[in-house]
């Protein structure tokens, strides 16, 4: 799957429009991912996001902490995507370090990138329905797919 000139232009325009909201959207996309695809929470045992867990119920601070961590992680993901947008002509080089991290340390099963990508699309669709035309939607889907491919490229 190759990103056309139109795709790159659509992604840059959309991401530019998001501006300072990127971190907020990253966090929301993560929250949506954990909500719709609970298996994704297995990668974040240290966040303790389990719904209705005694800890969560009894300790409001713990909930706040978990959410703070999720928000921080959402910002991290968003920052990485911003970098990717700036280097769409050579994603493998630009994302090499993250690629190594996912392959050798995190080892997130590839299926999960699809879940997060989908929730990123849903988040953007919610916040920018007018800009989220079918063509822009297609370009973003391709872009997230390309990023996911690079992040899993060194898995084996």
């Amino acid at each position, binding site marked *: 799957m190759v990103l056309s000139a139109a795709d790159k232009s659509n992604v840059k325009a959309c991401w530019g429009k998001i501006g300072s909201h990127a971190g907020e959207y990253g966090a929301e996309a993560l929250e949506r991912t954990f909500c719709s695809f609970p298996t994704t929470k297995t990668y974040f045992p240290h966040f303790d996001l389990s719904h209705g867990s005694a800890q969560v119920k009894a300790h409001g601070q713990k909930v706040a902490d978990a959410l703070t961590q999720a928000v921080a992680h959402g910002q991290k993901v968003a920052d990485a995507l911003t970098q990717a947008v700036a280097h769409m002509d050579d994603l493998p080089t630009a994302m090499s370090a993250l690629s190594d991290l996912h392959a050798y340390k995190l080892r997130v099963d590839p299926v999960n990138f699809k879940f997060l990508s989908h929730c990123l699309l849903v988040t953007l669709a919610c916040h920018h329905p007018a800009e989220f035309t079918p063509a822009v939607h*297609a370009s973003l889907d391709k872009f997230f797919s390309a990023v996911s491919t690079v992040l899993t490229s060194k898995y084996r």
Partner: protein
Amino acid sequence: MVHFTAEEKAAVVSLWAKVNVELVGGEVLGRLLVVYPWTQRFFDNFGNLSSESAIMGNPKVKAHGKKVLTSFGNAVKHMDDLKDTFAELSELHCDKMHVDPENFKLLGNMILIVLATHFSKEFTPQVQAAWQKLTAAVANALAHRYH
């Protein structure tokens, strides 16, 4: 059998009541054909599908989208009995239309995304989760009779 909680059912039913099936159906199918162009393979007789505007404006796409989403409305009415509700359609999609069930997942995700564009803030993570569950369950029900 998939179990939906009372909250999940409420989330689905209340949002569905506000859905313009004709409009949303057309958008859902249109986006499927734009975002995943290989799905056009099932619609050779639909005429002009050569561009985003051609697809989104195509009257056959709109009509078929309405048909598909109307059928989906049946799922909302029978959330506890999806396999039986879609048994006949499952056989039809396998034997007559030869549709890879993977496409049901793709369409399900398009429904989610179009709902998101229409309902914005109302489409909370919890509402989305209920709808993800429903579209996944419908996809499974439609694939259930494949052989």
